[in-house]
């Protein structure tokens, strides 16, 4: 992981919480043991502690994020998703969460495999590179897309492995991961219709949240 993507532009609900984090939190059972990979300043961990009563731990790459989190009383360590997940034993957590970070890892597939080794379930959220705004920019403007949720220039982006919802679903199939739940959010942070077909999600979902578990 190079550096954590900026998430300041993600929509917030009336309570001031990021909509994608609320969605993630809703997928977590009460009292569960949770590892948040790339936990930033600990916003999700705090939300989980307050609303779901979880035993939460975090890994964060940036020293400022870690020190802020620890000073808030959260159990966070400085570390890198690409290298440090290997140190965790099997089945150590109920959930391993990767929020808005998958596309910034060097080896997304390995990270995903580790998440489902360490945790019984994994929750992954990421910006959808198949969103119509992204497609239109590349098609008509001919430059690397820059949107509210992907604000970087091609040369300074931490996002080195963009994927679309379709790509992610395909990866899950390849490594034999079961999709228990999936939600796509539009640009205003509202969930898309559950019965919409994948192509619709892939075109109109600005970001997606997946709850995954091991097959079988």
């Amino acid at each position, binding site marked *: 992981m190079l550096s954590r993507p900026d998430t300041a532009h993600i929509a917030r609900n009336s309570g001031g919480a990021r909509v994608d984090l609320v969605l993630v939190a809703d997928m977590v059972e009460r009292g569960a043991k949770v590892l948040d990979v790339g936990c930033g300043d600990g916003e999700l961990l705090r939300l989980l502690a307050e609303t779901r009563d979880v*035993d939460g*731990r975090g890994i964060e790459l940036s*020293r400022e994020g*870690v*020190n802020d*989190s*620890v*000073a*808030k*009383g*959260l*159990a*966070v*360590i*400085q*570390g890198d998703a690409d290298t440090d997940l290997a*140190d*965790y*034993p099997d089945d*150590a957590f109920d959930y391993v969460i990767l929020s808005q970070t998958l596309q910034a890892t060097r080896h997304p597939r390995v990270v995903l495999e580790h998440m489902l080794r360490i945790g019984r379930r994994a929750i992954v959220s990421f910006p959808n590179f198949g969103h119509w705004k992204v497609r239109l920019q590349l098609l008509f403007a001919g430059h690397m897309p820059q949107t509210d949720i992907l604000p970087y220039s091609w040369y300074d982006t931490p996002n080195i492995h963009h994927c679309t919802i379709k790509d992610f679903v395909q990866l899950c199939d390849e490594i034999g991961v079961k999709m228990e739940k999936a939600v796509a959010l539009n640009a205003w942070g509202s969930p898309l219709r559950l019965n919409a077909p994948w192509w619709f999600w892939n075109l109109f979902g600005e970001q997606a949240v997946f709850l995954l578990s091991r097959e079988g």
Partner: protein
Amino acid sequence: MVEANLTAARDVPREADSPRDSDVAHFGADKPLKLDSGVVLSPFQVAYKTYGTLNAERSNAVLVCHALTGDQHVASEHPVTGKGGWWETMIGPRKPIDTERYFIICANVIGGCMGTTGPASTDPRTGKPYALSFPVVTIRDMVRAQAMLVDYLGIDTLFAVVGGSMGGMQVLQWAASYPERVFSALPIACATRHSAQNIAFHEVGRQAIMADPEWRGGNYLTEGTDPQHRGLAVARMAAHITYLSDAALHRKFGRKFQDREKVTFSFDADFQVESYLRYQGISFVERFDANSYLYLTRAMDYFDLAADCDGGLVANAFRNSPTRFCVISFTSDWLFPTSESRAIVHALNAAGARVSFAEIVTDKGHDAFLLDEPELLAIVRGFLDGARKARGLSGAP
């Protein structure tokens, strides 16, 4: 004249037996200390200080473990030097380890020289100081003695065990030996084992002490000689360099001259850094015992948590640990570098323990843990606040 001074010195009760401004817990024949070496130390005593008030539930006790050359005078004036406590940035009213919230205990380690039984203490069998007949002690022995003190104080579970360097080793040993008695643990700037480089530096210090003709095979107290100003001072000077960093030394001293304009073509302290080190050496020997230095450095050298564990894995020392850990390291600490703290964190993660880990940016080297580092203070405060909430401790005692 010299003879007269020594006689006078002998009439004054020695700090090693009768410490000033300290409480002393005596452990008689019914409470022997069984050491790792197999030797049983009895009777023995532990000199300690407490600050703050123990609450009715006896649940707000914080044990502070001191480093190699520290002692129990953690937050109040030192009886020998007259200086303030060694961790007053951390401990006091409304400080991160708040004396208005917590009952703070700091005990001189076994083998020390500030009132807990050590090589300078009087051996009851001979009426003379133990000197080298004192048994070699380990970090685990120090922790055993502290656990007996905590029992003596009627405390079952410690809210926190905190310490840096050798104190951090004791914190790790506490969590490994008595997991149910340690609610939270703060090992700072330490490691699960002493590295070859660190053992090597200690050996230099010990050889400096033993090479001093006044040391007399360790019997200087009975022979009335004074090895302190040579051997022990040199040991301290060498060690002190390892507590700093190249950047800190350069910032503080550079190549500046001491009270002169140019080099004197002699071996005087031409440079400020030399003068500073000499001062560090001289001021240290006022308050420390040469033999204690040998024993305590040895205890650190022997420390290797993994050696006591199944499969030689540190993680097994913390299996199913209920303790909340906060590991802290400093970027410029080359004595206990961040990689050592990371190894602790990996082991704790592998054991499924609840751990936080922060590395603090500073150029002040290993000594940073004793200094006014705002980020260190904020992290300790935040971690303890979180632990206090989890423990259900109220704001005031």
